[in-house]
């Protein structure tokens, strides 16, 4: 893995064994390394997973915002759960935590609490996206998260 640089570097936690990234970094290097080394062809797979996450991110954020707007609590829970699942794979703990809160809000049907989380969610998502793109083995960063998908695009 090449070391990341610039702003993205600050977003990557190097707290390896414990993987505790909350408050320290946006994604977990240890978690990502483990993912990379758990399967043959880990580099290209990791790039592919990052691409899938980054591609999916705007759609999920938009779906979460719409669910809040529509006051559709079950859909909010589902959308937040799905985004949370993807984020957890990269050790994006803060994003995971925010999604978890939204998921619970959806489950409890307490939508009044949701709007306050939207802004932090947007900011954290952007940081996670940037951190992940910086981690890609070929460093194909793009300014707005529309990362060029190298292999495949899959319907969500």
């Amino acid at each position: 893995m090449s070391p990341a640089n610039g702003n993205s570097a600050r977003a990557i936690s190097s707290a390896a064994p414990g993987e505790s990234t909350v408050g320290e970094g946006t994604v977990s290097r240890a978690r990502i390394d483990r993912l990379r080394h758990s399967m043959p062809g880990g580099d290209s797979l990791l790039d592919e997973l990052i691409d899938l996450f980054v591609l999916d991110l705007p759609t999920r954020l938009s779906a979460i915002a719409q669910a809040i707007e529509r006051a559709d609590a079950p859909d909010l829970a589902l959308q937040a759960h799905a985004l949370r699942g993807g984020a957890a794979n990269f050790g994006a703990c803060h994003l995971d935590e925010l999604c978890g809160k939204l998921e619970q809000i959806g489950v409890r049907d307490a939508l009044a609490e949701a709007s306050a989380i939207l802004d932090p969610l947007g900011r954290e998502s952007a940081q996670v996206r940037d951190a992940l793109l910086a981690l890609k083995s070929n460093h194909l960063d793009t300014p707005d998260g529309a990362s060029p998908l190298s292999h495949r695009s899959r319907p969500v």
Partner: protein
Amino acid sequence: MTHRILIVEDNAVDQRLFEQALSDPTREIEICNDGREALAAFERHAADVVVSDIMMPNMEGLELLDELHRRVPGLPVILVTRFGSISAAVAAMQAGAFDYVTKPVEVFELQTRVKRALELDQLQHENDTLRQELAGRFGPDSVVAESIDSRKLMELVRRIAASHSTVLIQGESGTGKELVARLVHYWSDRVGRPFVAVNCKAFAESVLESELFGHEKGAFTGAIAARQGCFERASGGTLLLDEIGDISPEFQAKLLRVLQEGEVLRVGGSEPRRINVRVVAATNSSLQAKVAAGRFREDLYFRLNVIPIQLLPLRERREDILALARNFLARMAAEAGRHMTLDLEAAEMLLRHSWPGNVRELENAIERAVVLTRADIITTADLMLDRLSGPLPAPPAAAIPIDNATPAPAMNEAEQRAQRATALEDSGDVGLSEYLDKAAGERIARALAKTKGNRAEAARNLGIGRATLYRFMRRLGNESIAEPHDNEPGERQ
């Protein structure tokens, strides 16, 4: 053998991660976005293991688990829950999940759980098959083969079992065609995989096609779900197509295509499926004669007749009669904890009888005698075959070599048998078996009445095993046995 795995997940990262983690050349993986999609995929093509998120749109993981278990009880389903969500994990296991993994998923953990599920599935399958084998019917030492012809036959079966070629078994009814087909399977390296037997004559042609090739959901009225056919169910194993001589010319063409191409097309389906099945066909008529008469396709006949086996009627291998009779008697007596023998005259009577119903008739006669007798020695009075037994039939004009590739003229035997049956019927003697069965049935009914329907006690009082009692009742369809009570107080299974 290919294992099929369904991954049910609604986020693209996990879909791809799970797919990559579980990829293997021996596995086929299908990805579904939610439970409803997964259920449809499962109905199209069943899976060996399902890995599903617990929280999804449309149909949640626990509901999917329930639906899948309704279709295939015990299907291994691994549910994916959030790390730290103890209640979800407990709910998953209580609902019958095979196991669970937590998100974020550790690749090795997922791989191990899926491997274990597949191994368990395979072990259960093999265990079922081996249990059947252990039941003793198909062990090499349990087959009665006293005559030279029968010993040659067993030697032939042992040799051909190792190959994967199609086998055509011909012989009169009751000569043991299904037993030989099972031996071909159980003595082959396909043991542990399914043995599926289908009687082609038992189905209307439209039903037979669906039964053998399967159908897709909505293929016809009443096809509410997709269903595997016998070819798919016998995957990796052996398929016995009994009464093959009775299928229509149209169906012969369809079957020929399947055998030639090695793939089946479900009714209403568009994608052929590869099959790996050893086909054993059986018939009590002469396929060669049917080919000559234009009633059976020659190309299909040659496709089926790669290894021909001709089973001799019992009257042409008389050395087997007493060995078989003693084998049946020993088994049925052992079930009752007794030791029973045949007296000399009874043995002579068995040898004298012409056995038009072959081994099946012999087994029934012994079973009936066991039910009727009160002693431990079976006499002619218990067999009561004298009115059916005529002089020994003339030996066949030419012995039929069982290991000869040329099919024997079995039609002549069948015709002889039919003639004899007609003659017996004309003389009124054909009803004797039924009369004797009825007498045995009445004795069982009296015993059941005395024990207020307790079958175990009735069997004990009759001095027969419960299995013999049940077999007899099943054979007669309970028609001759008026059971005094539906519920059976004190019944012990």
